[in-house]
């Protein structure tokens, strides 16, 4: 199964404080482990939301909102895409991650929808189209 692993933002990351050399090195080693285990598909660190934009949808309306955004704990500071056997494996790998931030922080794992999940609510044709468009 495919999962996206979100490193949640903190006040530090939102201030644009870059990780220390030690953390970068530890993350490098961790990433190497992920690669050697064959589960790493992609990953990146994200700039703080001072450089982000949101587009609000309401009917035909499209409103662009410039960052920064207030709800720090809900923001994302980085992500990985992993191919794992199940959520337990993803959790076990996340626990091995070095502390991603200087202070307390959170990492969130979100499994992808797969064809089988949508099969119950959609006919094969529409499932095809929905997933194809995604």
């Amino acid at each position, binding site marked *: 199964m495919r999962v996206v692993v979100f490193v949640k933002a903190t006040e530090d990351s939102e201030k644009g404080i870059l990780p220390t050399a030690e953390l970068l090195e530890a993350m490098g080693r961790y990433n190497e482990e992920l690669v050697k285990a*064959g589960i790493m598909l992609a990953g990146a660190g994200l700039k703080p939301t001072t450089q982000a934009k949101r587009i609000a949808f309401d009917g035909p309306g499209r409103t662009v909102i410039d960052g920064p955004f207030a709800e720090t704990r809900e923001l994302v500071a980085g992500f990985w895409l992993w191919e794992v056997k199940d959520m337990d494996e993803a959790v076990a790998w996340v626990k091995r991650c070095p502390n991603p931030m200087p202070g307390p922080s959170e990492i969130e794992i979100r499994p992808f929808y797969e064809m089988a999940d949508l099969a119950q609510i959609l006919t094969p044709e529409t499932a*095809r189209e929905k997933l194809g468009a995604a």
Partner: protein
Amino acid sequence: MTTGATHQAIEAIFRIERARLIAGLARLVRNIDRAEELAQDALVIALSEWPRTGVPANPGAWLMTTAKRRAIDAIRRDKMRDRKHEEIARELDGAFDSAADGIETAMDDDLGDELLGLIFTACHPVLSAEARAALTLRVIGGLTTDEIARAFLSSEATIAQRIVRAKKTIGKAGLSFEVPRGAERAARLSSVLEVIYLIFNEGYAATAGDDLVRPDLCREAQRLGRMLAGLMPRDAEVFGLLALMEIQASRLAARAGPDGALVPLTEQDRARWDQLLIRRGFDALASADALGGDGPYAMQAALAACHARARSPADTDWPRIAALYDRLRAVAPSPVVDLNRAIAHSMAFGPEAGLRLVDEIADAATLRNYAPLPAARGDFLFRAGRLAEARAEFQAAATLTRNARERAFLLARADACERGGEFRPGNSPAG
């Protein structure tokens, strides 16, 4: 996680460490069965201790140390029983101390090498290709015999027996569980790559059964390929194979229609190709190129990349594909490559060019009962407007294929010839 670790979480950690544990232990005891038992023993101890003590900082090293200690204790007991010499006990104490000391430091350096050694052993040419695939899925992939049996549409007993025999053969041959060096390395590596691609293909082009693809098997092969690329970052063909699998797998969702039938490459909805896998395939291909890769896998990946790059079938660079097949034929000559070359030439230079090339190889013994040959010939004839001949070829292909979905596709094409060719032209070129 510190205290109160659940069994489920511990088992997840164990699954991550299992292959590396078996690899390290197999090198010590020279026996895969024994290595599997020792790894399992270490899990049992972890299950009883970790909920109390918390998970150690380096769980992999903990499991390895625990298992190796048991292995050495057992060896010592055996030796003591056989020959009660204190000398031996002292000798083994020394061996144990240095082993225990060495383990922590060796963890990071040698484990990759040990895992690689196990992969090379499980894929040793002394074993049949099927035995290599089953053993690799078991000890490296961590699949159960039941899962492997389902993947290969075989019975659990058959697979279990295949694995037992493979382990015995390895024991009898006295294999060392080391990564081969020098000239032997290249030959052995091609055996490893062959096994991984066999596993992938069993998922991608299911040769038997009702399902056209078995994505789980593809995913497992991709994982092995990614693992190998992480362990062997300087071998072009490792990246060539990885690139090939990533790009081919990018089409899995588009390859089977809503009714489960095969959708040929030229008719697939390209919006459904997995762009992440395509990009990963391009990256791996670039690594293969940078390492001077012009082996058969890198070349097949380059072929697959031609299709991945084309936004629509009409954008496909068929002359480039035809040229790549001309080169592939030189490094990896095979009747199947010849057939795909004929298909590529038909797309680049017209159906007559394809017919010319396919007629050159039609007598090859290996292609006599090979469904794709009449299928391709039928397509060329169809496109050349020779519908009656095309129909006969599609029918011949339909009787040859073992895949029910493919048979339905071929019969539909045969019917279309009868109706005067209202079936949209298209074929399923490899790549």
